[in-house]
């Protein structure tokens, strides 16, 4: 029996100060509301401008449950269109990425569309004369999303035409994207290396929740990172520490390390771990990179950029960025109990190849479906998805280091669950903000 659709009070009641209701993770109806409300009203990541370098280049993806195509319409103009022919509904751009030239052509009846979505041509067009075709929806061509914003080559969109502005939505949190881009001596990133795609049979919010969960690595990843440390300790003295061991070993740092590293939260559900320190802080220097950064930015600025070692930054609702290691993970919702995790990697343009090598190694070791770290994370997510069916308990707890009256920007203890609370409050807000408008109208 539906109870959440059009019922903002019922949705808000699912998020308490220190706990959230299990329905957030298990209810198919709530998932449907998420697609129609939350993913319509938030600014959602689409892709990176380097994926469509030339006019006519396109990349297909989803925003929430909506199939979209990101296309470069003109040298400085990236559009995001609903990837659906207005005629019979066919997905027009079929490949993951490609080049469509000056127009899209539907494979079913050869209707064509300019790369801004407008209808260009229909074969045997006279068949539509005096039919009132101009008054039909199809005449308007492929629909554009509500709004698009390209921020330092990161492409975001809001599906709904009206709503919160880009700056108001992200605010200071954009500083993490800034830092990742600034790590390139030329101030530019390129998608590189290929994307790892990992299917999770769990709700997408479990992954978002996990990104700032600093009390799980030493437990869930003892088996992988802890074993890596143990095996490495048996190596003959004097053996140089491999990059892989350098990447694994901080996962099993003690609680005190994670407490000290701190968490920063921003409005609208954004936040990051690793304020004062992080698991990415102690990687070996890469020859030639520091010099290139100093040459590009000067000593002081280069030091400030490289000294900002933020761990995981959550951009609500569904991406996480690691500036110091140049990865971006997208948690794509497929169903209440199914999520596709895409882990993207970037080349710092102008930096030595070793940095991309390090980025790709990290992605492979931590984010691949073959990853020994990923295996234990997915195991606990899937066990959660299964056991949340229990009626023995109704709520999921996020009370750790709750201080009362939490709002706005703050820096807190690195093992606080405040960023999770921040996300769930943003969830309740963006699930219902559009409903309120509908009621008011």
């Amino acid at each position, binding site marked *: 029996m539906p109870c959440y659709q059009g019922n903002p009070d019922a949705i808000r009641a699912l998020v308490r100060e220190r706990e959230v209701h299990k329905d957030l993770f298990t209810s198919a109806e709530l998932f449907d509301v998420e697609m129609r409300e939350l993913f319509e009203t938030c600014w959602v990541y689409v892709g990176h401008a380097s994926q469509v370098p030339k006019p006519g280049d396109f990349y297909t993806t989803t925003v929430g449950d909506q199939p979209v195509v990101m296309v470069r319409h003109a040298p400085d103009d990236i559009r995001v269109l609903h990837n659906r022919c207005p005629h019979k509904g066919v997905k027009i751009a079929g490949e993951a990425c490609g080049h469509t030239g000056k127009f899209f052509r539907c494979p079913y009846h050869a209707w064509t569309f300019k790369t801004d979505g407008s209808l260009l041509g229909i074969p045997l067009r006279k068949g539509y004369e005096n039919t009132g075709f101009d008054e039909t929806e199809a005449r308007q061509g492929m629909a554009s999303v509500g709004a698009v914003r390209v921020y330092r080559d990161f492409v975001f969109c809001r599906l709904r035409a009206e709503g919160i502005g880009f700056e108001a939505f992200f605010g200071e949190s954009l500083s993490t994207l800034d830092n990742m881009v600034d790590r390139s001596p030329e101030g530019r990133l390129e998608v*590189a*290396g*290929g*994307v*790892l*795609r*990992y*299917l*999770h*049979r769990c709700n997408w919010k479990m992954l978002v929740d996990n990104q700032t969960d600093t009390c799980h690595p030493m437990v*869930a990843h*003892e*088996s*992988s990172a*802890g*074993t*890596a440390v*143990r*095996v*490495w300790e048996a*190596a003959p003295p004097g053996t140089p520490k*491999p990059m*892989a*061991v350098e990447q*694994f070993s901080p996962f099993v740092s003690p609680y005190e390390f994670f407490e000290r590293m701190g968490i920063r939260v921003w409005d609208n559900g954004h936040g990051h771990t690793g304020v004062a320190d992080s698991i990415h802080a102690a990687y070996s220097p890469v020859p030639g990179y520091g010099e290139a950064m100093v040459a590009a930015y000067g000593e002081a600025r280069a030091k400030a950029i490289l000294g900002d070692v933020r761990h995981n930054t959550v951009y609500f609702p569904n991406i996480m960025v690691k500036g110091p290691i140049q990865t971006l993970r997208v948690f794509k919702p497929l169903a209440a109990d199914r999520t*596709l995790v895409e882990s993207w*990697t970037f080349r710092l343009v102008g930096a030595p*190849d070793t940095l*991309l*090598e390090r980025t*790709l190694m990290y*992605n*492979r070791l931590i984010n*691949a*479906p*073959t990853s*020994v770290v*990923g*295996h*234990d994370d*997915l*195991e*606990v997510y899937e066990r959660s998805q299964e056991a949340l069916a229990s009626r023995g308990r109704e709520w999921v707890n996020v009370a750790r280091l709750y201080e009362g009256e939490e709002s706005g920007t703050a820096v807190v203890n690195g093992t606080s669950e405040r960023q999770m609370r921040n996300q769930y409050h943003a969830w309740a807000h963006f699930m219902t903000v559009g409903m309120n408008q509908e009621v008011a109208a």
Partner: protein
Amino acid sequence: MIGDITTERLIDFVYGESALLDEARWDDWLNLFAADGIYWMPLTPGQQDARLQTSLLHEDKLLLKIRIERLNGQRTFSQQPASRCHHLLQTPRVQAIDHGAGRYRLRTAFHYVETRRDEQTLYAGWFTHELAREGAHLFIKLKRVDLVNSDAAFGNLQLFM
């Protein structure tokens, strides 16, 4: 002495390697690798670069040893219960023989099943074995696993193909 590396022996080596995995004899399996041996699962069909292109796996003996030690660990939650695997191999084709250098290459089509709890998943692809002779023994310099759908989205893939 050169003549003792026969086609039959090369093919038996490939069958034997998969049998060790099916029997979960991980340490014996790892001992088949040369000291600088690599296990590689590319992410994209035909991939040549393992350094600046992402792979599903690209592991040396140290990383493989970590993987194996982890499988035996008390707190390896994703292996409670443990996965099991089954290899079905087409007859390996010997692609290159260089007795002088002691180097051999074989290619083998396979079906691989990994199972855990009530689920089993089928994967298909091709192995390429680069083998080297050291003394009387053969060792793996490179085992390359090309899945026919290497760029698809997978769930947990926990054992070795």
